[in-house]
């Protein structure tokens, strides 16, 4: 964390001004995007926001509490499914559940998006709490593999609970509630939450647990409680992210929530810097855009002199190599565990207003 101990009041004001300008510029960008971008571009733009939420929630565990969890996709699935089942109308549910009718008590429930997404998040948090309480007694590798296991179990359960989840067919035609406004408000709130949390004594306790569990315990920190809390809150945020994702692409099925999805989020967290909020935010934007821009890699390539056939998979090859190169040659990612600050920027060179809303 940055320490502002020596900064003069004037300087802080100037940096705050920059922040306000950047935020304002970003709001304008979001409005412009919402009004004028084509559907595809707008979708990528909004996907960035969702990945910010997801990356921050994973970073809270991996980066700030030092818990290496690989089960994130499972919690996203819980959030996405609960929220979707609560917002879909009975007619829509009937259309989806043509193989096997839906359980009646759930069929007739339809509530607005806001309470639905919060219940989705809470459901994910509850599952996280149930899983966390036993699993968090395990250490590093064991924890990683056990969370991975739980992620898979959640997915298998969803696939098999056909009367509730429609099984492998998934749910189609969800109402498109994840608007530009919704997703970016969510991203802003989650970012703000993380920044405030990490500046508080509770965030400090999490970092202490990450740095040295035994010493933290000896300093009077209830390490287990901190871990369970972190895991639960992270699951909540993952559930929110999953619900937003579901209501953006309007289709969810169990195959969406494999380890692959966790990998994508992990990629963002590692590239941005494990333990850096601004790193996660920047990397979420960069990776999401790259993922879409690089889709051309999977298509036939035209090098003028020769053309290649379509190469599905090339994009993931590029991303895997990228991840490994970063881990091997720049272990600490883009930001390390530092945070973005205007001083850091002006220290490099002036590069204005490229990214707003992140450096609160």
């Amino acid at each position, binding site marked *: 964390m940055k320490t502002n101990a020596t900064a003069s009041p004037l300087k802080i004001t100037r940096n705050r001004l920059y922040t306000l300008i950047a935020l304002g510029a970003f709001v304008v960008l979001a409005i412009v995007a919402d009004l004028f971008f084509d559907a595809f571009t707008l979708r990528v733009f909004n996907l960035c926001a969702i990945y910010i939420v997801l990356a921050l929630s994973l970073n809270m565990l991996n980066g700030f509490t030092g818990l290496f969890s690989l089960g994130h996709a499972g919690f996203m699935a819980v959030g996405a499914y609960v929220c979707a089942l609560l917002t879909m109308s009975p007619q829509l549910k009937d259309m989806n559940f043509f193989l096997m009718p839906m359980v009646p008590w759930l069929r007739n429930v339809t509530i607005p998006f806001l309470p639905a997404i919060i219940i989705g998040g809470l459901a994910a948090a509850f599952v996280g709490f149930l899983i966390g309480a036993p699993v968090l007694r395990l250490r590093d590798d064991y924890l990683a593999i056990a969370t991975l296991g739980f992620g898979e179990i959640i997915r298998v359960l969803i696939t098999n609970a056909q009367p509730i989840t429609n099984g492998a067919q998934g749910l189609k035609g969800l109402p498109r509630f994840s608007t530009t406004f919704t997703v970016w408000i969510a991203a802003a709130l989650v970012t703000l939450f993380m920044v405030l949390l990490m500046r508080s004594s509770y965030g400090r306790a999490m970092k202490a647990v990450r740095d040295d569990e035994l010493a933290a315990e000896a300093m009077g920190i209830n390490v287990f409680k901190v871990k369970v809390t972190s895991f639960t*809150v992270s699951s909540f945020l993952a559930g929110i992210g999953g619900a937003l994702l579901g209501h953006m692409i309007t289709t969810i099925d169990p195959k969406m929530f494999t380890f692959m999805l966790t990998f994508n989020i992990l990629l963002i967290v590692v590239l941005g810097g494990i333990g850096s909020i601004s790193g996660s935010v920047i990397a979420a934007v960069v990776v999401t855009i790259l993922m879409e821009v690089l889709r051309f890699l999977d298509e036939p390539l035209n090098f003028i002199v020769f053309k290649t056939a379509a190469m599905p998979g090339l994009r993931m090859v590029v991303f895997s190599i990228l991840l490994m190169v970063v881990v091997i040659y720049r272990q600490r990612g883009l930001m390390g565990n530092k945070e973005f600050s205007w001083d850091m920027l002006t220290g490099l060179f002036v590069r204005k207003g490229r990214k707003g809303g992140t450096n609160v």
Partner: protein
Amino acid sequence: MSEPTSDLMLRTDHVFMRFGGLTAVNDLNLEIRKNEIVGLIGPNGAGKTTAFNVITGMYRPSEGKVFFGSDDITGLKPHQITAKGIARTFQNIRLFKEMNVLENVLVACDMSIATGMFGATLHLPGYVKREKEARKFSMELLEKVGLKHLAFEKGTSLPYGQQRRLEIVRALATRPKMLLLDEPAAGMNPQESVELMEFIRKIRDEFDLTILLIEHHMQVVMGVCEHMYVLDYGVTIAHGDPASIQKNPKVIEAYLGVD
């Protein structure tokens, strides 16, 4: 030695700690009085650190009980024992490696995160007030031990001796009644060791502490300890005041046998 028992700060009652076939601590009976500085000495592998780990709740004893004041603290979690008023340092310094000096101390102030996660995150008035007090208290502590000017340096970047001091400050920030120091003089030259012992006496007086410290070089602690226990292979082979320990044939044998 028939002082009233109400004076007792820490007592271990027939404590055993076994790992498989190895008995690391064998029938340990410590009796430490308020405001005493007590040395726990013995050759390497004598079970001193294991005894610390039992007292601070890192290990649960195989047999026996630990009393702090009149409370039975056997089997409590380390953080609960810290909350009762026992703080410790580690033999192999364990600072929070990504934190600066001030944050290292602040963590130890946070003991009762009573505001909870949301109070802290939302910076509720109660939290803000406590955080301010914690900062002030931490800075005062750092000033007292001469580390204030390094408050914003990374803890692990300090020279070795200052890291040891920082660990002691960090333990003090939990506002303990009793302090357990695990080889505080390790790696120091004789001059530094003497200074450290002075420092230990000073904090005992200033913070009204009872101190138990581990050392395997007997000479270092002779001057500062009022009472000593000598362990060898887990067994308490002698205890008493420094002068009697120095003359004890069993102690001499244990030390000559090893060093």
